């Protein structure tokens, strides 16, 4: 198989929205190494931004500096991202789905970001690992290359 199979990398971000830029650069570098196409990376960037901004804005009850660890790996032609944060226990998949039939402006706030994440990735799962929130997002490369979107 390609060198992509051997790619495994970790980046640690601070709980600061400005860190999204550093993530973007890291993702681009990882994508180049693994030979991932741009539209695929764009989907992953957006899926991640939605999760990360939720963590930074809502996950911490203090003002302290926290670390959010993101583990990247290629597995059977899929990119797998594991996002680990030490904020309050929170499973974003339990947030009620937004009512997409309502005009945007009349909808309840919230749920939109995770809906985007789930639409852009093939699989999103949550578990708690000794008090750490672990969100795992998977996207198959062939699906990304076709540029298809699931609704």
């Amino acid at each position: 198989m390609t060198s992509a199979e051997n790619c495994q990398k970790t980046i640690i971000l601070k709980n600061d929205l400005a860190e999204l830029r550093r993530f973007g650069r890291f993702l681009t570098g990882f994508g180049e190494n693994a030979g991932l196409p741009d539209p695929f990376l764009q989907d992953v960037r957006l899926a991640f931004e939605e999760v990360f901004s939720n963590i930074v804005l809502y996950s911490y009850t203090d003002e302290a500096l926290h670390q959010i660890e993101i583990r990247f790996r290629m597995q059977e032609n899929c990119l797998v991202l594991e996002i680990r944060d030490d904020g309050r226990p929170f499973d974003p998949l339990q947030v009620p789905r937004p009512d997409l039939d309502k005009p945007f402006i009349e909808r309840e706030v919230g749920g939109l970001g995770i809906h985007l994440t789930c639409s852009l990735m093939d699989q999103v799962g949550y578990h708690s690992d000794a008090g750490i929130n672990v969100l795992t997002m998977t996207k198959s490369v062939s699906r990304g290359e076709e540029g298809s979107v699931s609704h």
Partner: protein
Amino acid sequence: MTFTVNVDEKKPGVLIVSLAGSLDTNTYTQLDQEMVLLLQREPTLVVIDMEFLNYISSIGISSILKAKKELKKQGAELSLMNLQPQIRKVFDIINALPSQPIFSSTEELDRYLLQMQRETIAGQTE
């Protein structure tokens, strides 16, 4: 991953807001601020030109639709123009495309404006 907003008056009351770069968690406040100033100019139509916008996240879409709501209060409309495929995809996923016409080019906008003008004149002479 920078972001710029540029506002141009196409004709009296019609403002073109050109976005370029990345409208995301780190940049949406720039658009919000620009929109506050823009509302004071009391336009009748605001067209968001996204030809050079290459990335948008949910907060960016919220920011645009917030502006649309404010404009509506003033009796003005907001339309979108030149949506790139990757931008349209995000609007589609969260089903947030407004019902107003979406212009695929400046020419299309020009035709629309001309039509509106004709209708206004026709309305006045009736």
